[in-house]
């Protein structure tokens, strides 16, 4: 309650030790569309709902899952425009790394640098934190990896995670369904089922997006036709 008096400046701590703007940013994330990621033994899958505000919107023009490098992809929950800015910055950082070392950036390093950018916006004057949480999926020499990055700039490695509106149900579902030695195709089925759990309306190939990276280290966003095949297998 007394915290609201301290929410005018992002860079001021409240007496309870919180940065209120970050809490609000997390609320923005929590009311965003559900997204999730699952790390399998031989790859990673990330997925999200793609609910458009009207049937008149051209769904092919909206791409919520993006690649940061050929072997790293990202999905978000929260504010789309903030996501686009972060994607742009991360891509640039990945390329700067390559220019210096002529080596593709390891997933952990890219996550670390992206998180550092997000943290900067919690400690600078005149800016606000990013209203997105990211799920970064990649495959490099250390195998398949899945990281979540929050508006505060903290990051965590997950075996499976969810964010957004339906987060608690989705996480419970994932906890039950996840196994260590899951194959990627099983993981994709599980991802679809998890999305279905909290889905309002009829799930179809045009209102979800799925991104996959396998041992070939190429991040791909599945086409609606491919999603349709997986949906049929699930039913």
């Amino acid at each position, binding site marked *: 309650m007394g915290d609201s008096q301290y929410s005018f400046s992002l860079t001021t701590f409240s007496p309870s030790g919180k940065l209120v703007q970050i809490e609000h940013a997390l609320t923005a994330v929590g009311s965003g569309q559900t997204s999730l990621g699952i790390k399998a033994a031989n790859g990673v899958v990330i997925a999200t709902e793609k609910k458009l505000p009207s049937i008149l919107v051209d769904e092919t023009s909206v791409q919520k899952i993006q690649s940061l490098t050929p072997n790293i992809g990202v999905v978000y929950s929260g504010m789309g425009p903030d996501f686009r800015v972060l994607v742009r910055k991360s891509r640039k950082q990945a390329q700067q790394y390559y220019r*210096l*070392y002529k*080596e593709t950036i390891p997933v952990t*390093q890219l996550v*670390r640098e992206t998180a550092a950018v997000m943290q900067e916006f919690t400690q600078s004057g005149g800016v606000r934190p990013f209203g997105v949480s990211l799920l970064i999926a990649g495959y490099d020499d250390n195998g398949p990896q899945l990281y979540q990055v929050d508006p505060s700039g903290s990051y965590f490695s997950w075996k499976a995670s969810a964010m957004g509106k339906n987060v608690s149900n989705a996480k419970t579902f994932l906890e039950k369904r996840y196994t260590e030695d899951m194959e990627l195709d099983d993981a994709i089925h599980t991802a679809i089922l998890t999305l279905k759990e909290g889905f309002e309306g009829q799930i179809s190939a045009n209102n979800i997006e799925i991104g996959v990276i396998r041992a070939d280290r190429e991040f791909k966003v599945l086409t609606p036709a491919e999603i349709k095949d997986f949906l049929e297998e699930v039913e």
Partner: protein
Amino acid sequence: MLGHKPSLPLPPHRTPRSAVSANLATPAMSIFEYNGSAVVAMVGKNCFAIASDRRLGVQLQTVATDFQRVFKIHGKLYLGLSGLATDAQTLYQRLVFKHKLYQLREERDMKPETFASLVSALLYEKRFGPYFCQPIIAGLGEDNEPFICTMDCIGAKELAKDFVVSGTASESLYGACESMYKPNMEPEELFETISQALLSSVDRDCLSGWGGYVLVVTPTEVQERVLKGRMD
């Protein structure tokens, strides 16, 4: 190669003069020849060798006979720097700094190819006011595959499968290595070959010499040896 400045032939016989008058009487020398140096690296069977001379001079005067030109970056990666000694030292310090931070961030050692790219990028940053050095990078890669490369003073990489040379004695070194080198030499034979190539080349160059320093690196051990050649 870009960094190779035309060198003025020095008069064969020089009567010793004091350092003060030497500056007035000596013809203009290339900055790469101010200190004098010779560095060479060779690839063997699952091993590599890197060697350098030990003279540090100020034009014609010898100032040190134990100068270090080959530096360790990590257990399986070594850097040799010929050219201006101050730039060699500074460049080495900057690279070690970058590598230590890399080790802390990425929790692993740098691969030789990656390190070579880093050196190249660092040198090109100073494109219009360069470090007057010619680096030689030698290391064992992921599966202990030997890797050597050299570059000019602004970072143009040159990979080689057999040997790389640099320094004021480079022309003699090219000749000596070309005739003495053969592929897939064992560490002992590689040591002999690189030592002979180095010593015979620096004997033909008045600015390098005063012995040699040879490092032979295999996946399991590193052998350092100091050579005694013509001490002049």
